[in-house]
C-alpha cells in the first residue's frame, strides 16, 4: 500500500516534470530558433528494409503529425509526383540532391529526410516481434541541420499478458495463434505512428512548434536575445 502511494506520487511528479519544459531557457535547437521555419518539405522515404511497402507506408503517416505540430507540410503525394516529373524516382537519389536546390524548387523553409532502418516481423518460438526503426533529419533550406532523431519501437502480441502462465498447453496454443496473426499482418502502421508521435510530440526530441501551433510565439520568445546595453 505504502509502495503504491509512493509510486503514484513519483509518477505524478515525473509527469509534471515532463510538462514543465516551457520554463527551461536552454535552447536545444538554436538553428531552429535562428530560422523559425514555417514550412516542411517531406521528401520520399529511403528504405533499408526488405519490405518494398515500407517507404510509402511511412510517408503516408508524416503529414498529419507535422501539421498538427503547427507546420505547413507540403502535400507529400504532390511532391512525390513533381519529383518524378523531374526524373527523380528513387528516394535515395532524392536524398543525395542538394538540399538548397530541393528547398528552392518547392519554396520550402526546411526539408525532412526519413530513413527506414528496420521494418520486420520476426517469429521467435511461439512469439512474433514486429520492429520499426526510423531515422529523421530536418535540414534548413540553407543546408544547416536543424533537428534529428532516431527511434526504434517494437510490439509482440504475447508480451505483457499471461497466456503462457495460465496453463501450459492451452496458453501455448493461444499465444501461437496470436503470433501467427501478427506475422501474417504485422502492426507496422501503429508502430510507425507511435515512433512519429514520440520523436515529434512527446519524447525528449520534441520538435519546436510551427507557426500554426498556439505555442509558436511563446516558444521562440524564450530564446530571444535581450536588447544589448552596450555603451
Amino acid at each position: 500500500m505504502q509502495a503504491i502511494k509512493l509510486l503514484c506520487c513519483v509518477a505524478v511528479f515525473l509527469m509534471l516534470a515532463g510538462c514543465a519544459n516551457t520554463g527551461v531557457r536552454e535552447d536545444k535547437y538554436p538553428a531552429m530558433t535562428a530560422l523559425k521555419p514555417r514550412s516542411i518539405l517531406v521528401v520520399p522515404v529511403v528504405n533499408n528494409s526488405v519490405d518494398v511497402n515500407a517507404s510509402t507506408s511511412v510517408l503516408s503517416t508524416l503529414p498529419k503529425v507535422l501539421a498538427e505540430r503547427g507546420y505547413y507540410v507540403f502535400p507529400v503525394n504532390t511532391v512525390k509526383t513533381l519529383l518524378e516529373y523531374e526524373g527523380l524516382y528513387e528516394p535515395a537519389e532524392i536524398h543525395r540532391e542538394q538540399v538548397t536546390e530541393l528547398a528552392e524548387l518547392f519554396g520550402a523553409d526546411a526539408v525532412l529526410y526519413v530513413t527506414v532502418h528496420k521494418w520486420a516481423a520476426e517469429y521467435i518460438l511461439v512469439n512474433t516481434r514486429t520492429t520499426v526503426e526510423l531515422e529523421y533529419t530536418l535540414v534548413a533550406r540553407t543546408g544547416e541541420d536543424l533537428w534529428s532523431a532516431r527511434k526504434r519501437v517494437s510490439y509482440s502480441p504475447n508480451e505483457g499478458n499471461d497466456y503462457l502462465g495460465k496453463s501450459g498447453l492451452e496458453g501455448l496454443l493461444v499465444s501461437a495463434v496470436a503470433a501467427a496473426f501478427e506475422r501474417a499482418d504485422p502492426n507496422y502502421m501503429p508502430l510507425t505512428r507511435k515512433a512519429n508521435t514520440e520523436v515529434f510530440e512527446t519524447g525528449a526530441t520534441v520538435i519546436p512548434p510551427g507557426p500554426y501551433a498556439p505555442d509558436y510565439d511563446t516558444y521562440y520568445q524564450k530564446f530571444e536575445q535581450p536588447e544589448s546595453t552596450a555603451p
Partner: protein
Amino acid sequence: MKSRVAGIVALVFSLCGCVTTQGGYQWGNYEQDLYDYLHSPEQKKRVVENQLAFIARCERLDLTPAPGLYAEVGTLLLLDGRREQAIDFYAKERDTWPESEYLMTTIISNLEKEAANAGN
C-alpha cells in the same frame, strides 16, 4: 485507499495537461486514402472520388481542410487528366496557405502554359 484514488486522479489530470493542442484540422480519411492510393492501383478512382467528396463536405460546412489537402486533390485530378479542375484546387491551396504560394503559382502557370500550347 483515498490517497491512492487521489494519486490516480492526479495522474490522469497531469496526462491530460500534456496532450498537445490539436490544430483542429479537417483530415477526413486522408491518411488511409493516401496509403491506399500508394499501394493499391485499383483503389485510385475511389480515392479521388472520396477526397473530392471530403473537400465538398468541408466547403459546405465552412471548415478548412488540413494543409496540403487541396493540392493533393489537384494532383489526383491532374493525373486523371482533369487539368482545369486541378488548377482550381491548386489555387485553393495557394489562397488558404501562404507558405504554398510559390509552389502553387509555379504549378498553375506551368499548367496554363501547357493548356495554351495544347490549344485549349
